[in-house]
């Protein structure tokens, strides 16, 4: 298992459980490096003092904060240490709330907590929290400090583990009051039809059914470039225009959605597949020029 990102103690009333923190997200993105075009050597970033036009070592660099009145305050590491939160090694559970009450907009990064140490006591205390929280449907709210920053966190039970998620503070969520929410109230008939359309297009949430096609395409592009093949940018799908008659569009969409669900997944042939599904097939059949093809072109290329 990876090294923990943080270790400390989870405190619940007077019960303290030594815990380690692990990320609950893997970084599977393909990362690029900056290179110098002519010799493909890596680019280094060096810090220069603008005033002296001279490279400066890291230890001569400080933090500056610009105030409203144009004044600048230099903040040292000691200054920051002085205000570091008192409890840097504990997550204090302050309260429990219902998970359903917290909108996902508040959640930031997910982690797992695991008990540490070889002794029986902490592991049992961890298990106790898991069982007590599973029964209550509650989420624990607490605070903890990682790399000098203090985080508000929610702790819930996921996969029989304590899962910790860092949270946004309320003043970091923008108000929705300036957002344009559109035109006139739909008629009852329109809303009923729209609800029927949503229901006809509904499935169960199955996260594994959704693949990162971007990552697959990027791997494919890198692979083809490596083999010296030419790659060009895809033609962009046209942005669809709003339907002039909403009711007529609803009726036709509903008829099509119902037709699709009764005809089964192959009912519409290739045209019924998404571009990603088509692209995946094109990749298997090694269709030349696939990455620059639009959905219609992929249908044609695969159909021939």
């Amino acid at each position, binding site marked *: 298992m990876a090294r923990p990102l943080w270790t400390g103690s989870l405190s619940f009333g007077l019960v303290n459980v030594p815990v380690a923190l692990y990320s609950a997200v893997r970084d599977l993105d393909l990362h690029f490096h900056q290179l110098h075009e002519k010799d493909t050597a890596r680019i*280094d970033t060096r810090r220069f003092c603008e005033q002296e036009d001279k490279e400066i070592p890291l230890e001569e660099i400080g933090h500056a904060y610009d105030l409203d009145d144009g004044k600048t305050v230099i903040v040292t590491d000691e200054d920051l240490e002085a205000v570091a939160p008192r409890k840097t090694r504990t997550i204090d559970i302050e309260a429990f709330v219902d998970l359903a009450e917290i909108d996902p907009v508040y959640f930031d990064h997910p982690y797992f907590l695991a008990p540490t140490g070889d002794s029986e006591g902490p592991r049992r205390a961890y298990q106790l929290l898991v069982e007590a929280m599973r029964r209550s449907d509650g989420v624990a709210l607490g605070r903890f400090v990682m790399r000098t920053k203090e985080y508000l966190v929610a702790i819930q039970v996921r996969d029989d583990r304590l899962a910790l*998620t860092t949270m946004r503070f309320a003043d970091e969520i923008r108000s929705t009051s*300036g957002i344009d929410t559109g035109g006139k109230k739909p008629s009852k008939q329109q809303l009923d039809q729209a609800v029927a359309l949503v229901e006809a297009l509904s499935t169960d949430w199955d996260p594994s059914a959704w693949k990162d096609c971007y990552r697959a395409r990027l791997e494919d592009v890198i692979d083809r470039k490596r083999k010296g093949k030419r790659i060009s940018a895809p033609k962009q799908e046209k942005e669809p225009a709003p339907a002039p008659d909403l009711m007529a569009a609803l009726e036709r969409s509903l008829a099509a959605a119902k037709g699709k669900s009764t005809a089964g997944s192959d009912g519409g042939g290739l045209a019924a597949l998404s571009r990603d599904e088509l692209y995946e097939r094109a990749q298997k059949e090694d269709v030349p020029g696939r990455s620059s093809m639009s959905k219609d072109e992929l249908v044609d290329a695969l159909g021939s």
Partner: protein
Amino acid sequence: MPRKRSATKEDYPLAAPGYSALMPRSLWNGTISVGLINVPVKLYTAVESKTVHFREVHLEDEGKVQHRRFCSAEDKEVPYEEVVKGYEVSRGKYVVLDKDEIAAAAGDRAHALEVEAFVETDAIDPVFYEKTYYLGAGAKGGDAYRLLRDALERTGRAGLGRFTFHNREYLAAVRPLDGVLALHTMRFADEVVAGKDVEFDAPGRRPRDREVEMAGKLVSSLHEKWNPGKRKDEYRAAVLEMIERKAAGKKPKRTREKPPEEAPDLMAALEASLAGGK
């Protein structure tokens, strides 16, 4: 058009100069389509980090610090036009991709988000939500926006589809939030770590029923209604206060950590916690 947001001075006591209280510009304009219903939308930031950021400064003369690009082979500064992106396929060996080649992977939905399916919002574990944005109605599609929002509110569902943003394709969930439509970029299943991958030994014996019951009581005694505004970023406030004191020529206040108390006996600790009303 979004209206001006009236932020007051108290909201941003130490806001950086040039801070604008206007609604931000839209980040992306496009069309969400559900069947033949097309909804033109504008994408806005929903979350704005308030973490205090500093700029780098040369301590000697308070000069601004610049980051300059150097070629590691030639030890020479490189202008921006000569910088390319490379993917390392084996140690020191790179495949260079230009903008068009990266765009080839990004997808062809630069301005369209086709809803492929609707799912029950409550069924989505929050671990899958990555970033949140707000969607506002775009030009000439206000009625369709309102219809989609109302239909999603009534059904408790979210629409799932893909769209291209900042030269990469994302899976997105569109759902109603606080009277508007929100868009969450989503994590893929293989990016989310399963609990079983976090390994540790189970305790020799499970907690006793009595212990679970006591812990449950403690959980309920600490239960409250979720009130996001109740918990403030105290660390941010302390950093800003320190900066103010420093600007006024005063010394920063010091704080000290006190180690957590050890509680060897689980039951005794639970009882003491309950008795303490904590």
